[in-house]
Each structure stands twice: as structure tokens, then as C-alpha cells.
């Protein structure tokens, strides 16, 4: 099959599942991906300035503009569960020499349905079916769960400052290691004294004028005091305990067949006494079972890795990629996952809805088929 034939086949699979076809905006304000995902994604974005000089972006995927439409629909007071499907162009600066800047994604996005193992497995099975319908036998599947690391952090019972820091660090390459290695630095005596004052903001203001320092930038005095208090709390906590350190390093190392993931994580829970992570692990196990029941073939090759999907910026739970023979690990033929916080983030918390979706990449599947035949 040629590229366009693959598009038609995948599209038919998704439309038959009940998805409403949608062709959302090509051009978005650059604020949408950059505020949501941060500057790390800028290197991949096709950016330009509009006639007023505002920074705009060609849609880097279809999930964002579809979710943006859905967020607007819900902000307008409409509700209910919705499934959208599309076969549309997306634009990304290539990472691999043989990737195209402009490519077609055929995909499906579901909003407002019950979230759970069955919903995740159903979505995965549908994407997997679309890949197979295109004549591609996957060579591997990677499944991650971005809720696992935060669940372990919560179970460790760390001070909120440290816990939040580690959860953010998890999403950055090398971030957790950097946090574990960092030593708390003491505060200068005059500055520490500000926190002991009856009115810390007034004391800080006094110290700034005594030193002739202007208040520049967008952070207020109370925000600076909050930062100082967080640093003081980190100093007083005296860094991470050996137990926490050992547990996080062991968690980071987990890379195993998906069928072993729940037991490997449960072993960690037992070793380090982190029962609080139990429910998240149970959810992962239930999802693995549900996927196994629907797509037995996928389970032979499916693997789980703790850090997998950390760079899927707005995803927050189940994440997966489907690999194919002859293509690099960085060039999956399909990918997707759960993003229950996306509608809330796009609407500035004025609306919320669960979300799960996935896409297939006909431009890559064409190359797989050439390699096979």
C-alpha cells in the first residue's frame, strides 16, 4: 500500500469505532504548546510571527488543536463524552534525517469517558488494530505509566517542597539524579533573620532598601519569602533519607517485560515499606491484564520502563509507543496515552475532562513495508 492508501485504511478503522471526523486549526498561538510543555519543545516547533508580531505555530500534533476545540466546547457549557478522529497534517522540525517536516497523523481522541484500565486497553487495542490493518507487524511495544513515579514520591512521605521538586525533576532528563546529588546551601544570616521577623515581607522590604536593591522582575515579596521558607525547610529536612534515595534509584532502574512490571514494583514497595504506592501499581497491573486480554500478540514484546514517556509533556498516566521492524526506537509507528489534565490546562481550569488518545504514522509505516518486502 502507498502512503495515501495507509491513511485511508487507518482512518476507516477509527471511523468505524464511532469517532467523529474533525479538521481543527492548522495555526495556533505559540503560547499553547510553549506554556503547556515548556521551552524544551521549541526546538521541534515550526514557529512564525503573524502580522502583529505575535508568535504562532503550525500544529505540532493533532491532539493539541482537537483538545483546544474540546476545551472551548466545554467552557461554553456543553458536556458529555466525545470521540474525535482525524487524518491530518502535522508539522515538526525533524530529529532524524529521514523524517519529514510535514507528515500525516491518523488518530483518535476521546474526552469525558470513564478513565480506567479498560478504557486504556480499549484505546491501545484500537491503535494496535489500525497498525495491523496497515499490514505492519509490530516488533515491539513500550508502555509506561507517568503516575507511578509520583505515587512513590507520595508514599515516601517527603516534605511537600521536596516531593514537588522530585516530581518535576522526573520529567527532566537527569533531573532526579541532580536532585539526589544536590546539597542544601545555608542562607546568609541577615536573610535568614527576615523569616524570623513578625512581618517577613516588611523585613525583606527593609533589607532591600538598606542594600539599595530594587525589586525587579515579576515575583512579589511574598513569593520571595515563600522561596526562602522552602529553602529553609529543605535545609532543616537535611536532604533525602537513605531509604528514599535507595527506593528512588531502584525505581529508576526498572526496565522489564510489561507482564513483570507490577510484581517488580510491588517488590520495591515491600523492600522499602512504601504501601502508599499500592493503588497505582494495582492500576498498572489491571491495565496490563486488560491489554493482554484484548491484544495477546502485543504482550509478547511489551516492555515497561519507569522513565518512559517523561517527555510526553502533557500526558499524565498511561503512555505507549508501537515499534516496527527496520525503524529506529525514536521513530515509533504509533503512540498515545492518557492526558486527564489537558482540558483543564488549556481552559485555565474553567473546564475539565478525562482524555485519552493515540495516532499512527503512515509516513513511517510506508518505510517499514519497504524494509520487509
Amino acid at each position, binding site marked *: 500500500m502507498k502512503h495515501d492508501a495507509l491513511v485511508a485504511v487507518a482512518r476507516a478503522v477509527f471511523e468505524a469505532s464511532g469517532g467523529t471526523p474533525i479538521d481543527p486549526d492548522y495555526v495556533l498561538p505559540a503560547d499553547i504548546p510553549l506554556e503547556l510543555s515548556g521551552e524544551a519543545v521549541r526546538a521541534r516547533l515550526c514557529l512564525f510571527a503573524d502580522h502583529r508580531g505575535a508568535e504562532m505555530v503550525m500544529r505540532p500534533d493533532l491532539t493539541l488543536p482537537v483538545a483546544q476545540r474540546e476545551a472551548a466546547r466545554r467552557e461554553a457549557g456543553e458536556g458529555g463524552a466525545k470521540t474525535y478522529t482525524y487524518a491530518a497534517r502535522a508539522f515538526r522540525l525533524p530529529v532524524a534525517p529521514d523524517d519529514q517536516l510535514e507528515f500525516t497523523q491518523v488518530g483518535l481522541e476521546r474526552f469525558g469517558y470513564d478513565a480506567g484500565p479498560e478504557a486504556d486497553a480499549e484505546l491501545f487495542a484500537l491503535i494496535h488494530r489500525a497498525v495491523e490493518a496497515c499490514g505492519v507487524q509490530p516488533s515491539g511495544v513500550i508502555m509506561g505509566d507517568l503516575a507511578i513515579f509520583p505515587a512513590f514520591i507520595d508514599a515516601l512521605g517527603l516534605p511537600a517542597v521536596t516531593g514537588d521538586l522530585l516530581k518535576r525533576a522526573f520529567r527532566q532528563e537527569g533531573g532526579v539524579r541532580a536532585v539526589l546529588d544536590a546539597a542544601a546551601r545555608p542562607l546568609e544570616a541577615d536573610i535568614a533573620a527576615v523569616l524570623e521577623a513578625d512581618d517577613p515581607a516588611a523585613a525583606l522590604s527593609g533589607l532591600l532598601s538598606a542594600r539599595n536593591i*530594587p525589586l*525587579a*522582575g515579576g515575583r512579589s515579596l511574598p513569593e520571595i*519569602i515563600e522561596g526562602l521558607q522552602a529553602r529553609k525547610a529543605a535545609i532543616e529536612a537535611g536532604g533525602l533519607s537513605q531509604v528514599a534515595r535507595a527506593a528512588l534509584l531502584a525505581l529508576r532502574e526498572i526496565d522489564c517485560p510489561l507482564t513483570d512490571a507490577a510484581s517488580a514494583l510491588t517488590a520495591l514497595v515491600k523492600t522499602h515499606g512504601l504501601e502508599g504506592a499500592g493503588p497505582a501499581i494495582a492500576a498498572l497491573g489491571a491495565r496490563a491484564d486488560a491489554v493482554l486480554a484484548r491484544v495477546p500478540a502485543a504482550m509478547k514484546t511489551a516492555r515497561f520502563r519507569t522513565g518512559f514517556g517523561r517527555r510526553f509533556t502533557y500526558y499524565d498516566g498511561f503512555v505507549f509507543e508501537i515499534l516496527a521492524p527496520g525503524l529506529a526506537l525514536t521513530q515509533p509507528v504509533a503512540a498515545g496515552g492518557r492526558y486527564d489534565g489537558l482540558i483543564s490546562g488549556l481552559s485555565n481550569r474553567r473546564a475539565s475532562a478525562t482524555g485519552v488518545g493515540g495516532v499512527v504514522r503512515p509516513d513511517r509505516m510506508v518505510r517499514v513495508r519497504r524494509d520487509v518486502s
Partner: protein
Amino acid sequence: MSRITIAIPSKGRLKEQTEDWLASIGHTVRQIGGERGYTAEIEGLDAEVRLLSASEIAHGLIEGSLHLGVTGEDLLHDQSPEGLGDFEVLKRLGFGGADVVVAVPQAWFDVDTMADLEAAGAAFRKAHHRRLRVATKYLRITRRYFAQKSVGEYRLVESAGATEAAPATGTADVIVDITTTGATLRANGLKVLDDGVILQSQASLTRSVRAPWSEEANAIVELLMRQPRAGTKRPI
């Protein structure tokens, strides 16, 4: 075989210092068309010589339209998509030195390191529903360094000039800029983070990786790599 193309800065201190250095190794520069001309001859080198802005030189070296050039490492690092590997610094020339640094308001007593900045950025986003702004003309250098330091909680604002004033005027909260003595930063109420020196840049003789190289071209590189002769002065 076409001649090799060398570019040198077209104006200012950088131009003078480059000419001084070339003269010191026996290659006097003669501008064609007087002070306003944009081509030149370099004594003893069989090459096409162009006078360009430092930024155009960095661009030409990376893209491969120039073989050799003298420009600032800050510009080379910032304009290269791949980072190191897009160009080869042959010789650091000891002038045009400046540090590319991350600076925050001095009033931020809670922020001394990149890790503190990450925490401040996260708290800011929670409170304001937007990211902390970092003003700079060095978009790529900034993005790479922040990623290397695992700092994700920020937004870039491209700055065309007077970057150091951005926090005071409210267009940004943090800056990434060049500094030599730090005096301008201090005058604007800013401080460099403890681990905020991204790059110690100076003017460098740089070779393009993408330009086509021949034996004749390599011979010219050898001539330029010679040490200054003792007692040479800038010719009148």
C-alpha cells in the same frame, strides 16, 4: 578549484583587533574600496576576503558558505543547530572576551543557583498560571543550558537589545546575556547565579565543517596558525 573564502568582522573593536592579530603573523589587511568597502585582500594569503558582521560570519561558517572566519564563540554556539560539531574553533585569539551568563534580580534572595531558579519557576507558574520569562538574544544557548541543568519552568522572550533592562521594565524576569565586568548587570539590580556562567566566549579563528576543503585551503589554515613574530606592531 575556487578560492577559499575568509571572513573578518566589518566594524568596531573586533575589526581592529582582528587586523592587529593578522598583521602580527605577517598578513596585513587591505580593504578594497576604502573604509566602506566590504571586500579586502590579506597580504600573503590567496583567498577571497569578505568583511561581514560577526553574526553573519557565524552563520556562514555553520552553513558552509565561508571556509574560515573570525567571530565570537557566543554567536557560533547560539547559531548552530547541532551545538558542537557544526564548526571547529582553530584558535582562540585572546580578545573580544565576554561571559554568557544567567542573571536574576538581586532581590531574589531565595535564588542563587539554577536549581533554585527551577523551584522559583514552578512556584511562579502555580501562582500566575504562566511561566517565568527569560529574555535573551541567545535562544539556543539558553535552551540547551536550561535543559542541561534540568530547568524546564520558563519561557523565552527574544530580546533585540538592552536585555539587562528587561526585568526592570517588566518584559521578563530573568535574563541570559553577555557580560565582561558585571557592572551593567549590577547597575540594573541583577546578579549572576552561582552556576550561571554558560560560556566564556572570545573571538576565535574558526573553520567551517561543511565548506569544501582542498589542500590549498588547508595550507592557508597552516599559515594562519603560526605564532606572532616578536615585536610586530600594527602597521600604519
